[in-house]
């Protein structure tokens, strides 16, 4: 894998200032068992492996495409404690140029969005990519809050994007189809699978990992934000009753159960 491909194209002239920020959330691996401690008030991190939020990884991959095809710099950002640094290093190994960690516990979405907005205002990114939601709290709130804080254009559930000069054509997923939108930079895009395909995802190679160690990872203090909400507890899913097995030779019974017992057909 070539990490620093650079194709000077005609387009590059008009967008040489493309400054990308990719927001990375550090989340439990998708196979994690979810448990809580302290009377169901704390998430139990015991034995949990952390990964780059899958939706963010699709976005990062799209960002690399912009960098290689159109020329752009890519900064990745996370709001988190020192524990999230391996996740940022992985993003650097995949190909981001530098990383910023806002040094704070990511307590809630509004807080996180304000931290990122503060950095973004200072640095002037014109394309900000985030995953459509993080797979831990699934809030889907940071992207919209961030766009609103910056007064940038915003496209949610983005499954395709092209940029020419200042013009952005983005496709978002809608219920039962998709919608093509026209807008301009600066913009926040909340991406998901589709913005790139699964096969486009990159596994960091040795060289990338070595290089990532040298790349800048800046730690900045958090700004003060009054919290809008707090997590006061957790509940596990109710226990499920056992699956009723029906013989493949008795389909009528299944239909009968769905009709009279479950009442869903």
């Amino acid at each position: 894998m070539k990490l620093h491909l650079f194709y000077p194209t005609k387009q590059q002239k008009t967008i040489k200032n493309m400054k990308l920020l990719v927001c990375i959330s550090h989340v439990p691996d998708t196979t994690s068992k979810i448990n809580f401690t302290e009377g169901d008030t704390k998430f139990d991190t015991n034995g949990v492996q952390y990964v780059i939020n899958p939706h963010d990884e699709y976005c990062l991959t799209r960002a690399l495409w912009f960098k290689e095809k159109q020329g752009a710099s890519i900064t990745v950002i996370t709001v988190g404690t020192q524990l999230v640094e391996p996740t940022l290093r992985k993003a650097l190994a995949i190909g981001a140029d530098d990383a910023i960690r806002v040094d704070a516990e990511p307590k809630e979405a509004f807080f996180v969005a304000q931290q990122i907005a503060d950095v973004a205002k200072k640095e002037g990114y014109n394309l900000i990519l985030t995953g459509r939601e993080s797979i831990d709290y699934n809030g889907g709130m940071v992207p919209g809050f961030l766009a609103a804080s910056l007064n940038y254009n915003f496209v949610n559930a983005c499954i395709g994007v092209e940029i020419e000069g200042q013009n952005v054509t983005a496709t978002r997923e809608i219920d039962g189809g998709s919608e093509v939108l026209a807008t301009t930079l600066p913009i926040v895009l909340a991406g998901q699978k589709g913005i790139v395909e699964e096969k486009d995802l990159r596994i960091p190679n040795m060289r990338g990992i070595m290089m990532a160690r040298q790349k800048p990872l800046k730690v900045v203090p958090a700004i003060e934000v009054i919290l809008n909400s707090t997590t006061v507890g957790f509940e596990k899913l109710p226990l499920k009753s056992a699956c009723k097995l029906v013989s493949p030779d008795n389909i009528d019974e299944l239909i009968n159960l769905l009709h009279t017992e479950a009442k869903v057909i």
Partner: protein
Amino acid sequence: MSVLVFAETSEGQYKKVAFEATSYGAKVAELLQTNLVALSINAKDASQLSTYGATKILNVKNEKLTSFNAKAFAEVVSQVAKSEAATVVIIDSSSNGLYLAPLVAFKLQAALASNVVGIPSTTNPFVVKRKAFSNKAFCLTALSTSVKVIGLAKNAFGIFENTVETTLADFNPALSDADFGVSSKQIIKTSGKVSIADADIVVSAGRGLKGPENWGMIEELAQVLGAATACSKPVSDLDWRDHAEHVGQTGKQVAANLYIAIGISGAIQHLAGINSSKVKVVINTDPEAPFFKAADYGIVGDAFEVVPKLVEKLKIFKQNNA
């Protein structure tokens, strides 16, 4: 003081989620001992919402708002929220609702809770239960701002009739060009199909089907049931089916009444996306497939034998119960 619900329309007709959100709003208003105001944009027959407990209905008639526009819609919702002194604003979890809610919350300086599955457990502090960890658990969130926005999870509350006396009025929002920074160019509909988001029943198939050429029976089963079709992630990654059908942790969430999984093993990432469906049926040759632990009903059997039989029997059932 009031509770405000944004009741979503599509081509002038209320979506099912609009009735669910209104039913929910009526309950929250009762809890807070206040009135429920419903807002819709370009609804053809706004009076319909009185059936679900809205005591005041405001309808916006504006050509510029014919197609959904998140920023402009957020402006309208927040203008109404302010003029009605709403302390709670309820928005559904359709693709438009998810896009809209954070923008509305920001404008109102309100806390937002998304994926909410029930009425507040207490109102002071204001605590709601929401889905978290990709449907593997719930989280209880306390909202501390004076105005609160609730993103109501799909199919989590239900639709309840509760006819009330209603006043109906138009609302004329003040909008500027700045609200239209993003514009719709084209809507591409997956034609002639029930969408996963709107479906009561979803028929889903996995790698067990061996190849895309075998989906005929799945389509047929979906057709008999009036269901949407879905698939597991590898099936969409292999391009056997369109990405829009991919359900699971990294795909679409399914909160249907009935989810039928055919030739799907039931990996944790798949289950995460379909957990909130009410009734789950699995058809799989392998009795050890993890899906049997998550399902309510199961058939250990070969999809290629079971599904065609199921289609035949269901056709007869439908005829008898028509």
